[in-house]
């Protein structure tokens, strides 16, 4: 019944509507493997451009090359993709933004900012499933063929190149370009959502987790808008995306018709996989200085796992924001971090700096000495000793 629903849903992809025999012949919820296009065709031209871009991406210094994490995410994409597995190539890109994209040649990029934001394996599966949905339905090709003029086609290829290339990250202007990458229509996005959720449920995860991904994102964006008045990320991200609240609601209702929240979200398994990378991702997140989003994110992660590392970084977000009352909030988080496992030694340094600023010299001195005792060879040890030497 569910599969039937999927097939009728997917029939709006132009290609599959024309090639229903492919569907009938395939096993499982996805259509049969896609053939590499003829080199002389429009699609073939796009593939050769993307192949060149992929070669660049493979050499990028921003790729996360940890074999274990790559094998984990690739393995998950492979399980979801079924017989498409040999055509999907996963690249983990160090960039603190929420983003994943899949090019029509099977190049699937997942950014570390997205990995940090996933509560569990089920949520990552929902995102990968969504991207696989775009891929199997060949949405980008439809967009290509929808381009009515050469200019539009040129723009499309330019965007495809820019977005697939390693240069596309970081600045908001580049993000805007990326958001418009293959400029999927809202209908395509809804379809990819549906496919992603189907794949999540078929793999035994609770399908409600797909809805939660968007709920979480909405909560972060609202927190940022309240703190800084920045609604920019909203408009950029949603230029080509349906309203995430609407999306989330649609997925929540669909989850209710599927197996809802039953299934194993694999929360602990996911936490184990990203454990060794979290600290770097936390640091990258702090440098974005979107503190409203960052605090909402860290508070949510704390509800998942209340450990010393997460408490410390929440404290860091307050310390760096430095608004009224943030010093006290940071000190509160540092105290909580100290009493929990995995508290980084740098907590004592940060605490010392806040105590020094507040004029609490005895406490600051004790904190700095504690930091030096834990990190005697730290690259900033001389600076810390000078703070102590100045008599604070």
């Amino acid at each position, binding site marked *: 019944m569910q599969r039937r629903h999927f097939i009728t849903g997917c029939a709006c992809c132009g290609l599959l509507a024309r090639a229903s025999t492919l569907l009938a012949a395939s096993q499982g919820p996805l259509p049969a493997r896609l053939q590499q296009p003829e080199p002389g065709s429009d699609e073939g031209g796009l593939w050769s451009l993307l192949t060149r871009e992929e070669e660049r991406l493979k050499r990028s210094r921003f790729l996360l090359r940890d074999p274990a994490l790559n094998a984990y995410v690739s393995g998950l994409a492979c399980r979801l993709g079924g017989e498409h597995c040999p055509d999907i190539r996963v690249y983990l890109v160090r960039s603190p933004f929420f983003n994943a994209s899949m090019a029509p040649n099977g190049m699937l990029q997942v950014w570390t900012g997205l990995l940090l934001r996933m509560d569990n394996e089920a949520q990552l599966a929902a995102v990968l499933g969504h991207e696989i949905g775009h891929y199997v339905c060949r949405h980008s090709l439809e967009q290509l063929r929808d381009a009515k003029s050469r200019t539009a086609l040129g723009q499309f290829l330019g965007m495809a190149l820019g977005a697939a290339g390693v*240069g596309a990250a*970081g600045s908001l*202007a580049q993000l805007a370009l990326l958001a418009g990458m293959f400029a999927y229509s809202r209908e395509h996005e809804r379809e990819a959502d549906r496919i992603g959720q189907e794949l999540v449920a078929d793999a035994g995860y609770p399908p409600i987790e797909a809805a939660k991904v968007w709920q979480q994102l909405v909560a972060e964006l609202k927190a940022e808008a309240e703190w*800084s008045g920045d609604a920019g990320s909203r408009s950029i991200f949603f230029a080509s995306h349906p309203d995430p609240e609407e999306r989330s609601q649609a997925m929540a209702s669909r989850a209710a018709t599927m197996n809802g929240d039953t299934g194993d979200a694999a929360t602990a398994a996911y936490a184990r996989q990203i454990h060794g990378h979290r600290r770097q991702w936390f640091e*990258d997140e702090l440098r974005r*200085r979107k503190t409203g989003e960052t605090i909402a994110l860290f508070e949510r992660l704390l509800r998942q796992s209340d450990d010393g590392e997460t408490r410390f970084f929440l404290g860091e977000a307050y310390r760096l924001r430095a608004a009224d009352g943030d010093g006290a909030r940071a000190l509160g988080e540092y105290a909580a971090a100290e009493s929990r496992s995995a508290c980084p030694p740098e907590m004592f340094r940060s605490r010392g700096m806040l105590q020094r600023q507040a004029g609490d010299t005895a406490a600051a001195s004790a904190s700095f000495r504690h930091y030096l005792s834990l990190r005697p060879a730290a690259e900033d040890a001389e*600076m810390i000793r000078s703070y102590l030497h100045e008599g604070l």
Partner: protein
Amino acid sequence: MSRWLLLFLVALLSGCAGMSKVGPGEVTVRDSLSVTPDDAWNQFSIGLTRKSEVWTLDGLPLDRLVFYVGIADGEALADLPQRKDRQVPKYRTTMQAHEIVEMYEVFATHDGSSFQRQKLAPAAFAGGEGFRFEFSRVRKSDELEMRGVGYAAVRGGKLYLLIFEAPRSHYYARHIGRFEALVQSARIRG
């Protein structure tokens, strides 16, 4: 019509993206800092703001010296495009060396570059106490591995920060000595 276009292009190419030679000898940076380089540097006109200058020896992709001079409490080192005011870190007179580096990091990574602060230690600068830090960065635009050194001091509640950065291979080693010598000559003007 075409002559106007030509004039416009000449103005654009020579003026807006222009470099002016500075040094050798004493040079005043934004009216508030003097340095005495042994060599001639090139001052990049687009890098000029009210409180900053950008200099280079071999051209901007290859080496870059940035002066931030007289940054007052509540002021930012630079503008961050498309950012709300609360998202841009501001200098505060209560900041310690670590926090000044953390503030700089935001500008150094805004384009998606990575940043790793390395050694941070007290150092003489601008005729008094200050600090020196080293960092490495992978520049997003071309993925070159960069190495950098910063010197900073606070005088009269205002921040003076000099950053030198060049690709790790060749250019850093080629010019770091000139930068260090220039730093030794730096003095804040009354």
